[in-house]
């Protein structure tokens, strides 16, 4: 059977899966709104974790947190499960599907057959929604794809039980029980507050605005410390985390600007429209950073001066973000 599920493409898989599931259950919120209420925006620089030969960066909060937080704020109950046994994981999926309920699954993308090869790394926190089954075929709404797609049972087992960092272990989730008419305004205010806290107040220099400054400081010495090749790789890694699948451009800053624009209407606060424009300008700066970074690593252009220039731009961005989130904080206090 195939559940009547409206597939809407999204920039980011988790927001997209969450927004599409919520809409199925009668709560029609946009992708940016889910992202904002779920406090998805973040910055993290983890120099001691190596991914594909370069340090780890993130422009978003941890996988799974966006939907969990958004659901909590909206009073929606999500049931999540993980499994040891593949058969149990598939049996439970079938059971929920047969009740006519679409199911979100966390999967690894390396073995996802319909994904473009350039994106098939060992990344295990992708989200898709299974919307029914027929024999050996499972109907899939993958928020990244323009149209719904399908997977065989074997393919689905394989991606649900991908191995490595963040191994999903069959992780699946669905919305249970009635979805009421939540106080979206309150959820929006709380989401903004949470993001401001994450960006401004975590007392560790790796996260938020501090993380951006720390990255700038380290970047000036990357060539000296890592050598040309690995420094170039690290720059490329930032660009990929910032622009690759799912950020909507500018390291999620444009999605967040879209959220603030909606928040202005929801809360009846025109100041948030201005905050949205400020966030757009910040996203544009991040795009400028990506452009500069790509010139450095593509053309192996310039020495320490080029890295210094990129670091200066990061410091500028850090100042802009600090100001923006401080203002936001006072707006939703």
């Amino acid at each position: 059977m195939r559940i009547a599920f409206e597939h809407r493409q999204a920039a980011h898989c988790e927001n997209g899966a969450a927004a599409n599931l919520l809409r199925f259950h009668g709560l029609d919120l946009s992708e940016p709104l889910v992202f904002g209420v779920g406090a998805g925006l973040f910055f993290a620089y983890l120099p001691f974790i190596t991914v594909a030969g370069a340090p780890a960066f993130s422009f978003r909060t941890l996988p799974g947190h966006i939907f969990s937080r958004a659901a909590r704020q909206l009073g929606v109950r999500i049931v999540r499960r993980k499994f040891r046994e593949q058969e149990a994981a598939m049996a439970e999926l079938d059971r929920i599907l047969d009740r006519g309920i679409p199911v979100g699954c966390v999967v690894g993308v390396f073995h996802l057959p319909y994904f473009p090869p350039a994106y098939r790394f060992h990344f295990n926190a992708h989200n898709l929604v299974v919307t029914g089954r027929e024999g050996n075929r499972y109907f899939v709404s993958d928020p990244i794809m323009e149209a719904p797609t399908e997977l065989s049972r074997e393919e689905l087992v394989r991606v649900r039980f991908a191995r490595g960092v963040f191994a999903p272990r069959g992780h699946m989730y669905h919305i249970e029980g009635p979805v009421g008419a939540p106080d979206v305004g309150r959820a929006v205010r709380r989401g903004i507050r949470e993001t401001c806290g994450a960006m401004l107040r975590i007392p560790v220099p790796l996260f938020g605005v501090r993380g951006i400054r720390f990255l700038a400081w380290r970047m000036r010495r990357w060539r000296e410390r890592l050598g040309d090749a690995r420094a170039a790789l690290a720059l490329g890694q930032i660009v990929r985390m910032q622009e690759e699948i799912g950020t909507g451009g500018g390291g999620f800053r444009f999605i967040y600007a879209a959220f603030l624009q909606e928040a202005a209407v929801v809360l009846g606060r025109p100041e948030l429209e201005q905050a949205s424009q400020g966030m757009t300008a910040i996203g544009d700066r991040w795009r400028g950073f990506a452009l500069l970074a790509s010139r450095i690593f593509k053309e192996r252009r310039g020495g320490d001066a080029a890295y210094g220039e990129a670091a200066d731009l990061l410091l500028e961005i850090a100042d802009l973000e600090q100001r923006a989130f401080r203002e936001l904080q006072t707006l939703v206090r």
Partner: protein
Amino acid sequence: MEKDKVPQHDAGLLGGVREVQYAVDENGRYVQVRSTGWDPKNAALIQAREMVNARVEDARRRALAGETSPLEYHMERCMMDPGLLADYAGLPARTVKRHLTPRGFAAASAEDLQAYAHALDLTVEQLRQVPAAP
């Protein structure tokens, strides 16, 4: 970013997939715009691919020269490291590391080879082969 400035730099990397970007329209309202790619991002994807290719090529040459085992070549081709391969094959990491040497690989049991073949989407026969050209 403005709607009409969303780049459409298709470098053939995404197999026709167009991604959603958020941009403002002529009235300043945010809308979704589909994009086929952007040069800086394409460059970063190509850089990542080239790094993988360089590692695969290095492993291929060394495997042909008998300096490493064919397993390392196939592991690199699947962008795995010994820990991840061990996880997919269901073997201890120490065993995998041993099999990454030519001598260790020659002594690997049929069961272990089957486990690697399964983990790497190959037949056992293919697992033993290393192509003579990249």
